[in-house]
């Protein structure tokens, strides 16, 4: 469709970022992946770093992220996206490097890679989409599945005595000294979408200054996996996911003023 700069005296205020390709997303209706893709690419477009950004795609629902993001992308083996991003950043330190991973990728098979990448303080951005389920393979239980949540491999609900508790990997990462900026955001409302975009902007700014690993968890939905409509899924997420995964910054860089007051 042709996009005009203005129509009938109205000016263009928002459009699909040019850094997204024209390929329609393959995600299910209402999936949070689309919003996260869109925001990442908006930030890349606004900062003018399209030619200097390299993304690493995971295995999971977002395995085809390289079809949608019009930047240099590399596919990684399952769970190894942050390790691959480490290699890319070390060879090409001038580029902006991010890995984009889901909860099955980052919090299950890639736990070791993620924790060690953050512990080394690699100058990359790790985007972690947490929807509490393995969406791509048919809604199986993930490490981040909530207690009592029904999935195809926990038909009676997750039993913490048998399977353990949901993994708060973002809280684990926040205590590592290599992590510079750790935050948990969501994509359910326009306000939260704006906050998430701000977090992406901050992370790319920090990466420019070689500060350390930035880690952004995006609490997302999975309408198909949860068996709900997108609107119901967002409501369920607010009622059940947010109490266990509270939104907000887990680790923010101390400002110069705060450092001064601590030293004094």
């Amino acid at each position, binding site marked *: 469709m042709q996009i005009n700069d203005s129509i009938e005296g109205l*000016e263009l205020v928002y459009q699909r970022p040019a850094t997204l390709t024209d390929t329609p997303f393959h995600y299910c209706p209402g999936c949070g992946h689309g919003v996260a893709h869109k925001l990442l690419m908006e930030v890349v477009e606004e900062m003018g770093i399209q030619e200097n950004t390299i993304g690493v795609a995971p295995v999971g629902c977002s395995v085809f992220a390289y079809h949608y993001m019009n930047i240099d992308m590399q596919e990684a083996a399952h769970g190894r996206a942050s390790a691959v991003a480490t290699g890319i950043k070390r060879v090409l330190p001038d580029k902006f490097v991010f890995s984009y991973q889901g909860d099955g990728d980052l919090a299950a098979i890639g736990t070791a890679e993620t924790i060690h990448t953050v512990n080394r303080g690699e100058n990359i951005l790790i985007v972690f989409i947490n929807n509490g389920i393995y969406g791509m393979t048919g809604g199986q239980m993930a490490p981040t599945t909530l207690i009592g949540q029904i999935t195809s491999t926990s038909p009676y609900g997750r039993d913490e005595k048998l399977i353990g508790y949901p993994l708060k990997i973002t809280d684990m990462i926040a205590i590592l000294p290599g992590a510079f900026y750790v935050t948990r955001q969501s994509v359910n409302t*326009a306000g939260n979408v704006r906050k998430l975009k701000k977090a992406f902007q901050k992370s790319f700014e920090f990466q420019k200054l070689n500060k350390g690993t930035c880690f952004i968890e995006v609490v997302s939905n999975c309408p198909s996996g949860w068996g709900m409509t997108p609107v119901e899924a967002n409501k369920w997420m607010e009622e059940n996911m947010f109490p266990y995964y509270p939104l907000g910054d887990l680790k923010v860089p101390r400002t110069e003023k705060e450092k001064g007051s601590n030293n004094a």
Partner: protein
Amino acid sequence: MIRGTVHFKIEICKGCELCIVACPQESLGLSNKINLQGYRFAELIKDNCTGCINCALVCPDAAITVYREPKSALRKSGKEAVEVK
């Protein structure tokens, strides 16, 4: 009131209804037609859009383009003041 409008890329809309819930003016709804993917797509059903971009922000398929009255037009009054840049 600020005047605005939205355009949908109907072929990539999946009819998830998130924009309809996000709209503070309740000016969006689902069409009775379907697109090539087989989804009922979203469309403007009322003429009270303010161009707040809430719908476009929450759209997971980046299918929404938003237009809004320029600020210069708000300060002046009268239709002649609305200039197309």
